[in-house]
Structure formats: C-alpha cells, structure tokens
C-alpha cells in the first residue's frame, strides 16, 4: 500500500518533469526530420519561458503568456532557419549562437525590466496554468491501483501536460499519415528528390523549424507559468540537451520519443525523491550525484545501449542545387 502510493507519487512527478522534455523533443523531431539539426532547443525554451513569465506577469493571463512564449520561440526558430536554410550556414554554430543569445538576453532583460535578480515577478495562480482535479479524484484516492492512477497521475495535471501527451499521437499522425509528413520526412532524407518533385525545399524546412519553434514555446511556457510561477535565470538547465538525447534514443520517432522522455522524467523524479534518503547498504547518496544520474545515464545509453541510431540522411547539410 505504502509502496503503491510512493510509486504513484513518483509516476505523477515523473510525468510533470517529462513534459518540457517531451515538448522540446517533439520540437527537435520536426526540425531534424526535415534535415535541420537544432541544438538551439535549449535557447528557444529559455526565450519562451522568459516571454511567458513576462507577459503573464504584465497581463495576468496565462494564455497570453503562452502565446508570447510561442511567438518569441518561433522568432528564434526563424533566425535559425534564416541562417541555416536561406544562408546555408552551419547549423551547429547557429544553434550554439542561439543558446548563448537566449541565455544572455533573458537574464539581462529580466534584470533591466524587473530588477529582482534576473527573474520575472512571482505570478499569482490566476496567471498560471493550474491543474484542476477530475471528478471524484479525492474519493478514489485510496482505491488501490486504479484509484491511485486516476487521482494522482491522470487527474489534476495542468492543461499543458495533457497537450504534451496529445502532441505525441498528433505528431505521429502528421508524420506518417499526411502529405505534410511525407514531404517533411523526404526533405530530411533526400532534399533533391523533393526539389525535383516540384516541392520547395526551403518552404518545407521553414515549416519544420516553425513547428519546432511553436513546441519549444510550449516547453518554455510550461516551465515558467505552469510548473513554476516565474521565469528564473537559466531555468531550462540543460533540458534542451536532454531532449536532444531523448530524440536520438527514440531514433527520431514520436512514440519512442515519449518513452525516452518519460524515462528521463522517472530518473529525475527518483533522484529528487532519494535526496537525503539513506539507501540500505550504501548510506546517504550525495545530492549532486543523484542529480547527475540522468546525465551519466545519457552518456551510457548514447555510448551504445540503444544500438545504432541513424539520423535523417540529409540532416545538417544545407541544400544546394547541384550543377
């Protein structure tokens, strides 16, 4: 009983932590499936979080915050697109630049505008996305398994959590069942084939980075105005890179991407749970080590436990018509 309860708590918390990863991972999926590598997920999340925190604080509306996050993130996505699609620049360099600009710009603007140590003002609950419990959640709380899953995992999450998990089947459907998806996948594998089929390669890739921007906006908004109650300097803390790692585990496929993000979520939830708790036979594990576990695992998994991950063939290569 107690174990079940603990399990449900960890699962609930894992889901909450995995949401920004999932948004960012799907964001990267759109971009990279179209052949545009994006290590700037982190930066876009950060500007999204900052825009959400700022606008929600100014307007008092979570939805306005979300829209601002999407717009800011899409703007940065388009900069990446402009550099790497229109000007055929190096996509890695462009992504790194975006991460640096985002980190510096958000901290500086936050400091200048609000003068509270680089943060945005603390939001009241009305200006955040708050979870509302589902009917009978309280009553079912003590029913083993079903009740616990219902009231602690399914019920009471904020709307962005549901949207993140709905984005998974939606992405799958778009990718494999629609014209848009077929062309998106094709442009990441062989852009010349897309070009000779009479489809604009730049237009497809811009569409893809825009999708990426929108989803990073969701991720940022979630951090600042759903999970948290304000933007905090560098609050993404490497989530954009973990999302990239998840994308590689998932071999650039949406459903496995969800499992990969949940795996990282579980690791983080467990790590949080075990902080300061002595483990039988080992003793108390230092907080820092627990926090490092997801990253260590990332290295191990990437180093060979997932088998050979084949990236989209034309990934990272700017498209130039051959003579």
């Amino acid at each position, binding site marked *: 009983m107690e174990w079940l309860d603990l399990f449900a708590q960890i699962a609930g918390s894992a889901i909450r932590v995995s949401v920004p990863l999932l948004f960012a991972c799907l964001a990267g999926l759109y971009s990279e499936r179209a052949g545009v590598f994006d290590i700037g997920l982190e930066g876009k999340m950060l500007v999204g979080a900052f825009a959400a925190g700022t606008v929600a604080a100014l307007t008092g509306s979570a939805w306005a915050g979300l829209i601002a996050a999407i717009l800011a993130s899409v703007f940065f996505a388009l900069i990446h697109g402009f550099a790497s699609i229109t000007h055929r620049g190096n996509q890695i360099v462009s992504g790194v630049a975006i991460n640096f600009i985002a980190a510096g710009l958000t901290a500086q603007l936050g400091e200048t505008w609000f003068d509270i140590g680089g943060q945005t003002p603390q939001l009241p609950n009305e200006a955040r996305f708050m979870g509302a419990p589902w009917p009978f959640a309280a009553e079912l709380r003590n029913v083993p398994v079903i009740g616990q899953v219902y009231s602690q995992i399914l019920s009471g999450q904020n709307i962005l959590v549901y949207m993140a998990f709905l984005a998974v089947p939606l992405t799958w459907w778009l990718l494999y069942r629609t014209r848009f998806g077929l062309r998106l996948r094709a442009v990441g*594998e062989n852009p010349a*084939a897309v070009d000779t089929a009479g489809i604009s390669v730049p237009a497809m890739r811009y569409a893809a980075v825009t999708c990426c921007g929108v989803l990073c906006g969701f991720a940022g908004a979630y951090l600042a105005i759903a999970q948290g109650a304000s933007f905090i300097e560098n609050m993404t803390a490497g989530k954009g890179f973990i999302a990239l790692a998840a994308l590689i585990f998932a071999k650039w496929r949406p459903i496995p991407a969800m499992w990969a993000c949940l795996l990282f979520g579980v690791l983080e939830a467990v790590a949080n749970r075990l902080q300061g708790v002595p483990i039988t036979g080992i003793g108390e594990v230092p907080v820092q080590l627990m926090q490092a576990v997801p990253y260590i695992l990332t290295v191990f998994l990437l180093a060979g436990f997932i088998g050979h991950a084949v990236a989209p063939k034309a990934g990272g290569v700017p498209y130039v018509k051959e003579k």
Partner: protein
Amino acid sequence: MTSDKAMAAHPAIALAHIDKRFGPVHANKDISLEVEKGTIHGIVGENGAGKSTLMSILFGFYQADSGDIQVDGKPTRIASPTDAIRAGIGMVHQHFMLVGKFTVLENIMLGAEGGFLLNSGRAKVRRELERLEKDYGLTVDPDALIDDLAVGLQQRVEILKALYRGAEVLILDEPTGVLTPSEAEHLFRILRQLKDQGKTIVLITHKLKEIMAITDRVSVMRRGEMVATLPTRETSPEQLAELMVGRRVLLRVVKAERQPERVVLEVKNLVVKDTAGTVKVNGVSFAVRAGEIVGIAGVAGNGQSELLEAITGIRPPFSGEILLNGKPLPCDAAQARARKLAHVPEDRHRLGIVMSFDACENVILGYHGDEIYQNGIFQDRRAIVADTEKKMQDFDVRPQDPHLRLGLFSGGNQQKIVLAREIEQDPDLLIVGQPTRGVDVGAIEFIHRRLIAMRDRGKAVLLVSVELDEIRGLADRVLVMCGGNITGECAPETSEKQIGLMMAGAAA
C-alpha cells in the same frame, strides 16, 4: 517509320536560342534543338559541353538567360520542375532522386499525393502502377523499400515516377552508367516500348555505342554549342567523336603484342571487410606480371574498391596475403609507395587530390618528402614548380599553370595531373581505378595511351573500371568481380555478353 509519321506534327520539344551563363562560364550558347514526337533523340558531348545544363533548363531546374521553349507546338514558360511536370516533361536523373527509406509507392506519390491525407492517394497510385505495369511491362513491388532494390529497379521507379505524373517526354541523363550490360539491355527494351506507345525520349549519354544502338536522331554538343543534329542511321561513332572533340579521335586502343614477364603483384586468398564488418572481398587470388595490364571488370560496388584499398594500404585486409615483388606488403600506404607501388585512386576527389591546393602542391602529394623537393629543412619551391612544369608539359595538362588551384582544372586535366604524379615515379606496379571517370573523350585517348606505354615499358598495371569497353580495350587479361568473388577470367576478346553474364554472377 515512326519518325516520318511524326514529321508532320509539331515537334515534342523545340528549344530556340537558349543561352545560359554561370558567372564566367558560358554553359549554353544560343542553342536550338527540335525533338520529334515519338522518337528517341540522343544528346552527346564531352563533360562540360553543356548537355546537362540544357536539360536542366528544359526541366525547370535552371532558368535560361534568354531563349524560348515550345512544348508540343505551344510556347511554354518552365520556371520550375512543377511547370515541367505540368507540361508533360519527366526526367530520370543520373543520381536518382529517390528517398531510400521510403517505399516505392511513397516515392512515386511524393509531390503528387492527391490530397492532405495519404490514404486515398495510396490507393490511386496502386491502381495507376498496375496500369503502367500492364502497358509497359514495368514490374516493381510497390511496397518494397528503395534501399532494398537493385539499381536497375531503382531506375525503373524513377521512370514510373515520371510516367505517373503524365510525362509525354522523358529525359534520361546517363542512364546506363550504373547498370550491368543486361540491365542496360532491359532498359533499352523499355525505352523502345515507350517509344512505340508514342512517348518521346531524350537520352543524354557519352557512350557512343548506345547512341548508335537505340536513337533515331542524335545531337552533338561541344563547349556549350550545338554543333550538329543528324539522323543516327547516317552517322558513325567515329564521326560523332570527331564532332564532340573537334578533331579526329582514335576510339580504339592500339597496342602491340607483349609477353608478360615475372610476377610483380600476387594476391592470395584476400578477404576484406568494410567498415560495417560486411565481407566485401571474399577470398580473392590473382597475380599481375610485369608487362601486362590486368583489368578487373564488374558493376560498381562488387568489392573492387575494397580490393584496391587493401592492396594500396588504405584498408587493412581481414585475412590473406599480398606480395609485391615476392615480398609481403604490409598495410601501409607510405611503405607501398616506397616499394614502388603507385596508385591512381578511383575517387580522385576523395583520395587523389586536394581541390583547394595549387597544381604544384598536388603534384608532390605523397612524394613531398622526396629528396629532390627538399632544400635543407625547407621545401624547395623552385624545384617543385620546375618539376610540375615539366610534368604538365609531358602530360599535356591545360592550362599549363603550376600555381592554378586544382579545382579550376577540368576533370580530365585533374586526372592527368594525378597520372603524371604517379607514372613519373617510375613504379613497378601501377594501380589505376576508374582512370577515365569524369574525363572527356580527348583526354581518355591520351590516358589510355599512357597506360599502354607503362605496360610496354615492362611495368605491371592493375586496372579497375566499370567501363567494360575500357577494360576490353586496354587489358591483356580480364578478371570479372561479382559479390566480392572473382567470377571469371577471360581474354579481352571475349564477347560483351559473356563478360556481362559473369558480371551478374554466372560462373565462367
């Protein structure tokens, strides 16, 4: 005759005064061309003569600077491949425009999906494929992955793609480069069938034999200009070659009898794996003697590249023995060079030259430590330039400028520089991969004469080429490789058909 009947109607394609420049390069100079409906029209020319540019303009890949295009008698503006497809023009590119991880069906529907959702389009493509299969005998499994298909079948998918889009005119750019002789024969059967059904076909190739075999009319391009359009019946390969190059060209290689001497290279039970661990050369044994050219024929990708890499010390063999002048040759490219093995690699851009270096720097690559290029601890720049000048003169490299960046030379001249570097070392064994790939007819003749001269000087030459004619013309002995094995050894006089069978894996 089909062509007489079609004469009365509009030409399928009429290009008038097409002009196109890429910066300083005048790729197409005032070109006019008419292609009659229901015929197979060949376009020949050396590399850089402007054939591909002209066809890319017709397919909307590039815009002409000036000139008009008429399709079926109607003036047509072709600003993009979409316009070309709409005007009924389809193109089969030299490098296939296919997505390897997609199925045949998905590749065919890409760009013509017929609605936002794929399901309805899929059914339509399937029906249409069945019809095309019935009409033209173009059989291919719609659910197969492109990556799993043989090259010949991939090409068939490209043709189906064009036909599915309603192409009346089909442009094929060097379609037989990647095919075995029997696959090429099959392709020609398909093309003739398409012609009989009223389709018009434009065939770009540098293989004069193919032009003679299949086309009704042929146009020759030289340095951006259209120099002639002739009925194929009234011309000959010799005449076409002369028109292409602008002077008389010897198409056949002339060589005297020569008795081979001692064994220079001996390969015993050589097994080579590629980076992924797949066996690419499967226990191959042969010998090359002084004063003979041994040619290895085969379709690209049957282990020839890995064999060359193993012998020249680029890729460590998995097992087996390589003996040079009777002594084991370790896997070390530098030592191989020191032991008088010279190598003209298959892919010169990747392994033979540095495009951004000057000609003179490329001439010393691999031999840059040689005594003659040194002046104390520095390189003797003057000696290097003088040596380069001499080599450029001997090998007729144009322009004769040792300081010019190599990327600015034509493919043929780049290859001559590589050959000059390797041959002038006076090696015992010369290993040559695809000596005339991307090299024009005039330079081919020169390169072939040089290789024969090496043999006549009593050197051993191992030649790998996918051009069967080249192998048969140069080699004294032909080995055929297929699937990592030597499937046969024969005299160069053996019929193309028989060698073709061995190339496809049939035992000799």
